[in-house]
């Protein structure tokens, strides 16, 4: 943290979801992919869209809209899959669009407010306002808690 504090900015990737802008730190992002063929995995929560072949590695894909209980949307040309790497697994996140990398001044980050739109606040680590844009910072470890077996 001290290192980041000295830099006073953090690089983030900005993506869209339901006309809102979200930010995740660039360190965890491995790449941004266009939509590709997804293989459904049965008996998993509905936000788990399935798995893809990411250059030879079978990678699970989750739909962030469904994860946040937002209304679903058909995938289109702008839809992207952001591949993120957490501790010991990779996950792809389906988002409406991803096209920005910005330097976020740490000063601009504020702790999570009580209410931010409709996304459950446990998924949010803070918000940041830069000029006229408002970014929601995601708490990825919460969003991506591994799916434990739903054995029937």
């Amino acid at each position, binding site marked *: 943290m001290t290192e980041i504090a000295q830099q006073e900015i953090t690089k983030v990737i900005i993506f869209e979801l339901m006309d809102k802008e979200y930010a995740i730190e660039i360190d965890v992002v491995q790449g941004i992919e266009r939509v590709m*063929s997804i*293989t459904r995995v049965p008996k998993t929560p509905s936000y788990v869209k399935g798995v893809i072949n990411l250059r030879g590695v079978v990678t699970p894909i989750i739909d962030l809209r469904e994860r946040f209980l937002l209304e679903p949307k058909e995938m289109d040309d702008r839809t992207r899959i952001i591949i993120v790497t957490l501790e010991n697994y990779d996950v792809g996140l389906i988002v409406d669009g991803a096209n920005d990398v910005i330097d976020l001044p740490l000063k601009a980050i504020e702790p999570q407010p009580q209410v931010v739109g409709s996304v459950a606040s446990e998924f949010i680590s803070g918000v940041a306002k830069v000029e006229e844009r408002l970014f929601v910072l995601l708490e990825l470890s919460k969003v991506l808690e591994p799916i434990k077996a739903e054995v029937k």
Partner: protein
Amino acid sequence: MDTNQYLEMFLDESREHLQSCNQYLLKLESNPDDLTIVNEVFRAAHTLKGMSATMGYTDIADLTHVMENVLDAIRNAKLQVTAEMLDYVFEAVGYLGEMVQDIEAGGTGEKDVTDLVEQLTRIESGERTIKSSQSEVAATVIEENSEATTLQYDEFETTVITQSFDQGYQVFEVKVTLREDCLLKAARVFMVFEILENNGDIIKSVPSVEKLEEEAFDQEFTVVMITNEEAEGIQSKIMKVSEVDSVHITAISKQSLEDGKRHQEEKIARTAKETKQSSDVTKKDKKERPAQTPAANRTIRVNIERLDVLMNLFEELVIDRGRLQSISTELHHPELTETVERITRVSGDLQNIILNMRMIPVETVFNRFPTMVRQLARELNKKVKLQIVGAETELDRTVIDEIGDPLVHLIRNALDHGVETPEERVANGKPEEGTVKLSAYHSGNNVFIELEDDGAGVNRERVLAKAVANGIVTEEDAETLSDKQVAELILASGFSTAETVSDVSGRGVGLDVVRNTIESLGGHITIESTEGQGSLFQVQLPLTLSIISVMLVELDSEVYAIPLSSIIETAIIHQSDVMNAHSQRVIDFRGNIIPLLDLKEVFELTEEQAADEDYQSVVIIRKGDKLAALKVDSFIGQQEIVLKGLGNYLTNVFAISGATILGDGKVALIVDCNALIK
């Protein structure tokens, strides 16, 4: 000093050294008089001590140090090998193993070893005073020898030395002692040799040059040189090399040479070995050294993760190869077809090589069992001999990783329930010592691992009583079961034959865990047992888990892979063959009524009921001796696929054991048949 980059090497080598400590200690236990074995243990312990001290793991270094002292006392005949002493040394090696494990797990490798250190020190010093008179005698003998010559020379060397005398040269035995904390012994040896070679000719060294290069010696080595320089000059030159403790130069005279020769003849039996060793290093041999050294070390360590990366890259190549093949069949371009064929052939060979690189001898797993059996036998007050056959049998790394635990379980079971106490054995007319034989061998595309004991075998009555009591079989069924079936009941879940929970078996897990693990690997386990004569557990495993044969099937537009190892056959059945029993659809398969599962229902595919056709494709699968039929839309065909996990995010997905990537780049899921049959 930043030691992180060496950590992995340190761990690997420590494990190897501990392994050889264990191995040689076991050997020593059966041949307590063989001092060459003590040397081996000492060497391993010594290297470990040096390594851990360099890496800053002082507890390991301290413990190895006292252990080394005990070993040193043994090899210098100051101590007699006793069972009690070996127990402590074994315990020390066990402790060291735990410490190394701790470091591997990210710990500091610290452990309270004071008690053990005290014990070992007591053994070392306590016994030493008693035997001191003996050691004095031994010391005088050595001194007497050194007045003549400490080394033996073969005929060739003697001739060379005699000729040198005739030409007015002197022959020196240069005994160099390195400092105990010397870190780069081989480098010091090299420097000493260089000095000696500048001042004369080296005709012999003890230990041999190869041994010296491998650092397979303690602090001392002796070099015999022919020179016309003064002894003092040579001595001071060598002393300039850092980390040299002392240099002792003895001049050889004709007289001493002859004395040595006579001495040698007196002890032909003992020296036969040494002369062979020393004659390896005549000057002629030394010139061949550059050629020999690489031959001795023709392997490299490769991190298994790198091999995994290689495998992944290769799989992508295979997928692209598939695409190229379909393109070339469409285009009918002769040159393209030819090139694609060649790529196919080359990549096929590559695949074999990569798979072979991942093969590891099963020895890596078997190695830990001798010590384990020894300890267990002591805990249980039983006498057990472990025989290992076929340890060189190779298996894919993926299988090796998985079979260790099931085998530990089986061995525990064999010792706890199989082999009887020495008294019982004698009473039953068997040798006091029980034999447990662990063997591995290849057969076709499988590896068999067998564990055989000459113990009590499975007691039909007792097993049946327990099985009935636990509701595994009904009393009526119990009568009709064959002995083999009864024996295999001990693998059923909820079964444990332990009448009293002992230390060994009371770990809350039964043999059913073993069976499940083995079956999840695509293997089988069977038991043959004769009451009073012993049992044979046979485990059959696939050679590799990374590439398996599957049947690809289609459900709606989704493709699933069913492992061939689970499939008995495929069939087309008529709608009218399907019957209902207890609200479960069943079919008659060769006289057996087996359940029919609709895979589409299992995998929650939206199925239109109206589409029920007259004929249905089914796959008959098995788990152990239970069968089931899976209804699918259509069969695509048999294929070899590369097995991939679903990753750590999706763990334990119901009835899916993994995934694979098909020729078109899409992911297909692999059906876990074991989960589908209850």
